[in-house]
């Protein structure tokens, strides 16, 4: 199953235009700032907003002429949009019943989905009684309930408070991975896009500015927005205590010294994400002596010039992207193959661990 | 959700009418309560009276005689009462009392039909024919009681009552139902026929079964303007007033 979309949607005075495709079992993230038109695009694909021009094909078959209820798309809306007058169970059974299934069969199917995606939530509860994270789990179950061929998740983590986010992100990753078909993930959060998506479409002001794998975009962002938000160094791994106030994040390709997060018990922690701004990485011709705790050596793999900045990708341990001025790059004669030292302070590393997360994991 | 409620409340407050007051001053206002069948005739008599007596304004309150009588008892704001029934006037005899009572006009009953006469009414006995949609004034309303009296005299009360489709509040409402063509026939006063003109077709009721209604007029005890009230009674019973009443279909008192 392949989804191909090339649409233009008028939204007020702005025209949102996008062309992309999502392959079978591929997760495509639509990443962009708020107001970029991401939701407009997925709602147009779902048939909720008419497209001015364009086509939406599913395995080559056009679906853009169908009314929304006949498009095989399962959508989890931003903030859930669960029906407040229906119970959790009835919400999840809704897509099944709407397609004509009998109440009993729909409920059984809904209960099964809830058991897998939202255990511990009372199926008889009204959505108003749920937390943001619980609502999103129910919304996820509801999106899957109608056996769709395309799964669309619109900002699934935005209404979820930080303490529940790590657990929900893991659930999203599993759900996306297991879904048999194209998956679209709408998000304004680069970490979400980078960790959950196979490919990323960057959308700004109603236009696609870049499409590529997370690594491609991180290494060579084409716009300031992409550079600032997406072009981050991202570390993932196991966090272990190192000394008072510091920890070691053991990634697949190297160890990073990081500050121990406030309010988190001093115990090893799995699945920890951390980001580091490229501008916070300093490059040196010789091994630097100073306060920076992280000092590594590596060969320059690529130098990308973006305006007056140079993004330098290092084959180091761990791998790093540094952003320096073109002047500095020229002075240091940095080019592909140059051997340089890189350093950054532990405190510059931003850990994506929320207080209390260790308890829920 | 609150808006409709407010609208309803607002409507209720707007639906009041100002009370007729008799204010002091050089020009006085005479309040006359009169049966609604007198409306057209009394309007003219009133203006004639004001022309002859500058400084006295006549304010009329027309309505069902029974209603007017009970209003006079409870409110006592009338100077003169002109009733379409002796009974209504009788009820004021002891409370609050009346003076100078005299019958000033007579009225008779008449059958009315729409101009095209869909039911083919030629005489009172036709009202007994099944299928005729007959409209009367309600019991308790003088013209309604008189109509029943006439139907009784014609020995067709039971049959005619089966044909009644509506008991109206007064003779004007009966005329409206017939002139609009909704009803096939009604029974009202001859004075109503003059007022309605071509909108209805009258069918006479023979004298033996007809009812001659006397209209009494009197000054209501408690009136602060007995002199003006007495002058008004004189105007009504005098030649000008009687001629006006004749023009509007009333007989002499």
């Amino acid at each position: 199953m392949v989804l191909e979309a090339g649409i233009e949607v008028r939204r007020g005075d702005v025209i949102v235009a996008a062309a992309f495709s999502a392959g079978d079992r591929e997760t495509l993230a639509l990443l962009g700032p708020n107001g970029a038109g991401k939701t407009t695009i997925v709602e147009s694909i779902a048939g909720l907003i008419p497209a001015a021009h364009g086509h939406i094909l599913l395995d080559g078959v056009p679906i853009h002429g169908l009314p929304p209820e006949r498009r095989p798309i399962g959508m989890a809306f931003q903030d859930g949009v669960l029906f407040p007058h229906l119970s959790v169970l009835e919400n999840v059974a809704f897509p099944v019943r709407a397609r004509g299934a009998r109440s009993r069969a729909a409920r059984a199917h809904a209960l099964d989905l809830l058991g897998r995606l939202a255990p511990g939530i009372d199926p008889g509860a009204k959505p108003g009684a749920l937390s943001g994270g619980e609502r999103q789990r129910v919304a996820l179950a509801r999106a899957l309930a109608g056996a769709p061929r395309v799964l669309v998740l619109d900002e699934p983590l935005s209404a979820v408070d930080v303490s529940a986010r790590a657990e929900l992100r893991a659930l999203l990753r599993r759900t996306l991975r297991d879904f048999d078909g194209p998956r679209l993930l709408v998000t304004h959060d680069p970490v979400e896009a980078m960790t959950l998506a196979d490919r990323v479409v960057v959308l700004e002001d109603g236009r696609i500015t870049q499409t590529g794998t997370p690594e491609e975009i991180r290494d060579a962002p084409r716009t300031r927005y992409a550079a600032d938000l997406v072009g981050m160094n991202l570390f993932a791994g196991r966090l272990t205590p190192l000394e008072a106030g510091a920890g070691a994040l053991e990634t697949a390709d190297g160890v990073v010294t990081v500050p121990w997060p406030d309010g988190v018990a001093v115990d090893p922690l799995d699945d920890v994400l951390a980001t580091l701004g490229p501008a916070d990485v300093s490059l040196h011709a010789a091994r630097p002596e100073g306060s920076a705790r992280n000092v590594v050596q590596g060969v320059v793999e690529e130098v990308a010039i973006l305006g007056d900045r140079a993004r330098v990708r290092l084959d180091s341990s761990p791998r790093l992207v540094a952003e320096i001025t073109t002047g500095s790059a020229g002075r240091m004669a940095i080019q592909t193959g140059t051997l340089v030292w890189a350093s950054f302070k532990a405190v510059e590393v931003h850990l994506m661990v929320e207080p209390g997360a260790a308890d829920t994991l | 959700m609150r808006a409709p409620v407010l609208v309803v409340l607002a409507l209720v407050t707007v639906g009041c009418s100002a009370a007729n007051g008799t204010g002091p001053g050089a020009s006085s206002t005479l309040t006359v309560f009169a049966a609604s069948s007198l409306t057209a005739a009394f309007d003219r008599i009133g203006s004639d009276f004001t022309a002859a007596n500058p400084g006295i304004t006549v304010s009329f309150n027309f309505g069902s005689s029974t209603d007017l009588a009970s209003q006079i008892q409870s409110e006592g704001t009338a100077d003169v009462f002109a009733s379409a029934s002796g009974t209504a006037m009788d009820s004021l005899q002891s409370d609050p009392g009346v003076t100078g009572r005299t019958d000033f006009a007579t009225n008779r009953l008449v059958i009315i039909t729409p101009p095209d006469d869909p039911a083919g009414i030629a005489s009172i006995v036709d009202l007994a024919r099944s299928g005729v949609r007959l409209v009367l004034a309600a019991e308790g309303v003088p013209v309604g009681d008189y109509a029943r009296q006439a139907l009784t005299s014609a020995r067709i009360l039971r049959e005619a009552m089966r044909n009644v489709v509506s008991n109206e509040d007064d003779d004007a409402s009966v005329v409206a139902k017939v002139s609009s063509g909704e009803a096939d026939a009604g029974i009202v006063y001859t004075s109503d026929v003059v007022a309605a003109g071509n909108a209805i077709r009258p069918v006479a009721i023979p004298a033996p079964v007809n009812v001659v209604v006397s209209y009494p007029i009197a000054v209501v005890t408690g009136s602060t303007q007995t002199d003006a009230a007495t002058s008004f009674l004189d105007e009504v019973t005098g030649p000008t007033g009687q001629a006006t009443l004749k023009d509007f279909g009333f007989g002499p008192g």
Partner: protein
Amino acid sequence: MRARLPLAIVALASLGAVFVLLPVLALFVRAPWSRLGGALSGVGASTALRLSIEVSLAATAISVAVGIPLAWVLARGEFPGRNLLRAAVVLPIVLPPVVGGVGLLAALGRSGLVGRWLHDALGIQLTFTTGGAVVATTFVSMPLVVLATEAGLRGLDLRYERAAAAMGGSPWYVFRRVTLPMVAPQLAAGAVLTWARALGEFGATITFAGNLAGRTETMPLAVFQARQVDPGGAIVLSLILVVISVSVLVALGGRLTGIR
């Protein structure tokens, strides 16, 4: 802590409350309690009451059935003259009911615009029939349920209906399972107001449908009629209406105005 109210407000509020309560109180004081049973049977209270309940319920049912789609069109439709249509729909609230009755006569009377055709082609005459009373009552009371439902629809977040469509719901299914249940509170409040208004309807009914016991003489008409013959009976009939209306309004409590 309770709000402390300024004295002037309390005084004016008391005045307002007394103004509303006094006529009702007076009805109780003046009622001929000693001959209550006689007064009741004398003025045909049970016939009028049964007819009133039938007519008001029928009018409410029609108002709801036609009023919901009308509210939907007004809330969601985008067409020229929508505001004009809304004004027309609300008009019966502000019109004197007798004007409504005259208009109904001109439209649906035996020689009216449509009524002529109804009569000549189908043999239907609405005037002087219970059906006519229902028509007149519906005309006057329907705007209340339309307004309430439209307000509910306007307050409804469109995202729910769009979500329901994306979940595979056909427009009719979405309307039935999502839209209608979500405006149910406003709809119910509007229906109750409509019913209460229908129960008290007088002017349009007597003008259009006439007044005949057992056929078109509803409680308000019976009260009006009884004044002529038996003022005490009129008070008894009025009291019955007061008791019924107050019971319903109290039972509904704040739900009527949406204040809980």
